[in-house]
């Protein structure tokens, strides 16, 4: 006889059905609107929108500063994570808790605060300006904002791996005659690398799309300090919906690619950690 299918745990149809419906309604259908709208444009229209000099300059700026910010965070985030995991020092708990500040602090608040710090008469700006270093209202300001929002991604992906790292590996390296630097470079760092790259990719992906914290400090000078999300807003304010959508489709594709890369990196990380994800 053919057995009737009964699932042991209930609610499969309901929970999956709701998940798919909600996902489609909130995320998938709205996102598909971007591509459907873009598909309605002629190629010339599309190309004019996404490849005008001002927009191309924004790509270079957005991707360039995001990459640089992620790289700076990778270095200092690793140092910070190492300090938090390996050393005891006063105030450590507080520092550890505040690392997540950029996750919790609204980006607009971060934006105006960083501007206040780095503007010509700001706390830090007043010292940097006489040295000829101009941070706010230009690309360096964007970099500062992107460093702010990206830092926790690096620290929080590296930290758990570093904590789980068994002392045995370093003990083995030491017993084989390696000094601390050799041990770090040849044993510890390769173990951390997948996580570090995952954190890098996460920080980069977040930075490319970031708007709130950047917009106040960037100065928004055409061809110099306009980020790509701002170009979308600018087009929208000119009621150029098609142009805005075309640029959005370029950004969405970049997001998809980054998402795939991040997924791949995370799979690599968990494989390195000997866990199945």
């Amino acid at each position, binding site marked *: 006889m053919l057995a009737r299918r009964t699932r*042991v745990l209930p609610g499969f149809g309901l929970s999956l059905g709701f998940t798919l419906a909600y996902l489609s309604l909130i995320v998938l259908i709205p996102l598909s609107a971007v591509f459907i709208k873009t598909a309605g444009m002629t190629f010339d229209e599309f190309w004019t929108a996404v490849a005008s000099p001002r927009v191309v300059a924004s790509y270079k700026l957005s991707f360039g500063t995001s990459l640089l910010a992620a790289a700076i965070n990778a270095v200092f985030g690793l140092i910070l994570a190492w300090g938090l995991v390996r050393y005891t020092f006063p105030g450590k708990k507080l520092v550890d808790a505040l690392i997540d500040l950029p996750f919790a602090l609204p980006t607009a608040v971060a934006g105006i605060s960083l501007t206040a710090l780095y503007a010509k008469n700001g706390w830090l700006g007043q010292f940097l300006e006489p040295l000829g270093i101009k941070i706010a209202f230009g690309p360096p300001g964007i970099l500062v904002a992107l460093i702010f929002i990206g830092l926790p991604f690096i620290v929080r992906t590296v930290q758990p791996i570093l904590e789980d790292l068994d002392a045995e590996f370093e003990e083995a390296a030491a017993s084989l005659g390696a000094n601390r630097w050799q041990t770090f470079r040849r044993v510890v760092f390769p173990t951390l690398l997948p996580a570090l790259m995952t954190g890098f990719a996460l920080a980069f992906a977040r930075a490319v799309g970031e708007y709130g914290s950047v917009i106040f400090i960037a100065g928004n000078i055409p061809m110099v300090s306009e980020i790509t999300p701002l170009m979308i807003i600018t087009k929208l304010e000119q009621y150029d919906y098609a142009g805005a959508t075309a640029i959005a489709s370029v950004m969405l594709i970049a997001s998809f690619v980054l998402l795939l890369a991040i997924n791949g990196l995370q799979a690599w990380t968990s494989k390195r950690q000997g866990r199945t994800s």
Partner: protein
Amino acid sequence: MSIEVKDIHKSFGAFKALDGVSLDLPKGELIALLGPSGCGKTTLLRIIAGLENADYGSVRLSGEDATSKHVRERHVGFVFQHYALFRHMTVFENVAFGLRVKPRGERPSEAIIRDKVHRLLDLVQLDWLANRFPSQLSGGQRQRIALARALAVEPQVLLLDEPFGALDAKVRKELRRWLRRLHDELHISSIFVTHDQEEALEVADRIVLMNKGRVEQIGNPHEIYDEPATSFAYSFIGNVNEFRGRVEGDYVRVGEDVLAHGQKGLADGSLVVAYTRPHDTEIVVDGAGRTGISAKVNRILASGSVSRVELVANGAAREGRTDYFEVELTPAEIAGLELETGKRVRIASRRLSVFAEKS
């Protein structure tokens, strides 16, 4: 209650986990589902419990068709391999769970629950742990709590998935004996899954030997050990010496050598595999004999009342591999044969079992 399983098929994608399994197990016995990992034993157990659906086939409990019954209605006690104790509940609450979730009308009073839980904890000798959380228990203690929890709902049948799998050797041995005693006290029909033959042989009334989704043999430990029904049963249970060759009349030809098989009905020229236990294997030292596998003494492991002699085949009994054989002898026999490392001898068998080789 009796357990009857009929023609169960179950696939996971392209993998056939169960391929036509039928069992008819009488009431009140302690039964072992034994087999290598991946043989389908856990899947079968879960299908009996109702935790998994078979693609085809039926399950009858106490003569009643349970195939389409929900696990909740089957009245089985299931002990999970990793215990599945509720980590946020104390030991007491874990054991009480099954009583507390009964429909309001059937739910016993708090006093009865307390009494019953303490009796069960006494039964598993862990009443003193009632207020601990599962994470504070050792593996063996968790196992016994999991069992007490399953017994709380008075199941008609107890199913245990690798009950000793996650424990260290010493605890394992203790728990094994304890489970046997408990079963003798309660006489509840029980099935446990194991990949450890020693465990099955020692504890079970009856063993169901499985391989690749099929039942190889069902029998009591004596039958399983001494009368293996299939080639797989022979090689899986106990130590065994294995010879592969071709039938030549009353002999099996293995490379250069021949072994007398003493069986009828073997087709001349057919490929066979022959098995013999170490204690049924003989060592012949006089060079005159024509039969037997020529071999060289490799090591003599003398400890206790039985010594094991390890030999290496001279000929290529199996191609490309060094073949080791093991023979169990008493120290006196070894002395009588004047065995020593490097000595050339022949191996024969008092009791050889021959199976046709699957091509």
